[in-house]
């Protein structure tokens, strides 16, 4: 292998590594890890959120509202925002999730925001808890 070929291969591997880590959902140890914003122990998966910076640092949160507050305050270069499905076991990329906001949703820090994987379920929940449905872009714009 020539030197140039080696370098090209190295760059390719690095890029695919970055891509892979962006696709890999967060690994939060519930009952152990602490929220980057409030310092509380992250206990409930259904309210959890996290983001990965372009530098490769994970930030984990016990409440989606805390993630929004932290990202606004620290303005880090975020590669991907993740939110946990309120009703299921899956992690969702925030930009493809639907968010319900209501004071009747008792989230760990009281922000009252949860995420769901599809709009229909989100609207159904919003009707139950007298809330509204938002996209992630809309939530970011509110803060």
């Amino acid at each position: 292998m020539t030197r140039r070929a080696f370098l090209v291969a190295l760059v390719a591997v690095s890029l695919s590594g970055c891509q892979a880590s962006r696709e890999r959902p967060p690994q939060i140890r519930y009952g152990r890890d602490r929220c980057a914003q409030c310092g509380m122990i992250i206990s409930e998966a259904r309210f959890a959120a996290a983001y990965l910076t372009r530098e490769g640092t994970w930030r984990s949160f016990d409440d989606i509202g805390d993630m929004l507050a932290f990202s606004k305050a620290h303005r880090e270069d975020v590669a991907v925002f993740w939110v946990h499905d309120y009703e299921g076991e899956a992690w969702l990329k925030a930009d493809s999730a639907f968010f319900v906001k209501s004071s009747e949703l008792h989230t760990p820090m009281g922000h009252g925001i949860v995420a769901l994987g599809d709009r229909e379920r989100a609207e159904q929940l919003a009707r139950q808890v007298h809330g509204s449905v938002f996209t992630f872009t809309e939530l970011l714009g509110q803060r």
Partner: protein
Amino acid sequence: MTLIRALGILLVSIALLAPLSRGSPTGEGPGMRALQALIASAPSGATLRVPQGVYTGPIVIDKPLTLISEGAVLDGQGQGTIVRVTAPDVMLKGFVLKNSGRSLAHEDSAILVEAPRAIIEENTLSDVLFGIYLKDAPGSVIRRNKIVGLDVSEAERGDAIRVWYSSDVLIQENETYNARDAIIWYSQNVSVWGNRFVGGRYGIHLMYAQEIRIEENALLKNFVGIYAMYSRGVTIAKNLSLGHRGPSGYGIGLKDSDSVSVAENVIADNSVGVFVDNSPSAPETPVVFRKNLFAYNETAVMMLPSVRGDLFTENSFIENFEHVGIAGGGQLVGNLWERNFWGDYLGYDADGDGLGDLPYKSERLVEDLLDRHPQMKLFLYSPAIQALEFAARALPIFQPQPKLIDPQPLMTPVLPTLEFARAASLRSGMPQAATGWLLFVGISLIIGFGWGVVRWLIPHPLLPSPSKGRGAGGEGEIVVRGLTKRFGHVIAVENLSFTVRAGEALALWGPNGAGKSTVLHCLLGLLRYDGAIALDGLDPHRQGKEVRRLLGFVPQQIQIPDDFTVGEALLFFARLKGVLREAVPPVIQRLGLDKFLHKRIGTLSGGMKQRVALAIALLGDPPILLLDEPTASLDTQTRKEFLQLLNELKSSGKTLIFSSHHHNEILAVADRVLVLEQGRLVQIEHIDGRGVSELL
């Protein structure tokens, strides 16, 4: 009206008893349906006495009623909430509730109250997700309940107590185990008093709460004892916060909280005693720490460098690895440190006003490094850390900027614990639980270690030089020269000199006020004195830690919380003394405590309590035992057994010094007697086969 109510009670009781007399209403439905039907038919304001039996949930109480259990068990069968209260003025007393649903999303609870003025009292809740949930239930009382959470991982637990938009609430004398939090959300004027929170996530958790009083609670081995977040007007007083060493590991945490008073608490054996983040958020709402005892924490107070407006005054910082830490490093500014006691203070008090004449500066190099690089804690207590400490002392150029300066530190620790515990005892309405807890920690500091304050740096010329290891004149030798102790104008001990050989038993004898206990307290390093003392060549003040390893102390009566078991007490003291767990069983065996390990201290006889005290003194196998009238509260038979134990210890080579009023005790154990009178030595007698009857 009274007649109608009495008739109501009678009818309901008869009706309830009828189905139950055919057998316990267990199984699907009938019991609960019967109970639900009776609630439906009961007049508003009636009292229902629910007989013994198992009733299956759920139940809804939708009118003002008093339900009193006479042995009734409400079983949720793992489905939903067991009891839901939707009407005001409901009382639920004495029930056993178990097996709620498991859904965090639905917040399945044992008791959910959604109306004002409920009284939930003396119930036992087990295997429940959420315990007692007050939701828009102002004016309610949660009193003397026992709540045991589910045996699941921390992440799957619910709150033992949850108060949600419910003001004017009293949470009193409850016990919770293995739940998530006792959490108070969006509520005002809540009093949390005399409870015991064990093994949860946050013992007491405040979120956006105001005017909250947290007093005389025991918070044990949670992740965090008390965490106040985004709250205002919080009083945290006279609590015990102990053993928080899991994730976070704070005895007390404050985040974005204002107007907080933290006073007279005992905060011991935590990873971090107090954690402060952005509290106060504004200078006009200060946070005040007063008269707290911080002991045996890895870090007593950890603050973010941005914290401003905290006042620390009259607190005692004793035997913490680090008294004050700065999270992430940096400098602390804008906080006041006034008249605190610092266990490692090296100054002096020439004018005798009780305040040090030199300021206390917290400036350890190692602490500074640990603040900036927490991962270095891996090397705590290692030779590497010791080398760094040595280098910093030898070459002061390495010393960092001081983290804080206390201009006039206290020369003696404040013991709020003992003072307020005594006051609590006098009030006496309070069961001795909290009192005992607090006395316990105070006494434990004395029994386990003594205060060991470094004061004198020059060895006394009349004393033997300290040996490189233990045992300048044999392991357990004690040399006292010219010991004098004054309390104001009163001379308690005057120019006392004596030597005790290793393995010898010396009795201190004399009337009350002769100075016997004062001598023992000087040997322990609890009191400052003139003259010199050496234990195995070591000075109790100058080499406090080393001396404390040589000593075990048995007081006249040990104060241990009644609800501690013998095993728990021994393990706790072993941990405080840094004794390995493996060293505890031999002590248990030696003192014949095997069968009592699960007994609670409160149920033990006086003799057995003293046996436990002796066991605690023997942890770590110290060569010297000091005993202050150890059999004073024992009857003749128990005293005889206790003296037998002391003789066995003497035979095994322990050095004993004990004070006593009983001549038979002295004859049975002592080799020599020091006769004291008004603080002076008037006679030394040897005891042989003929005894010293003419002396005594």
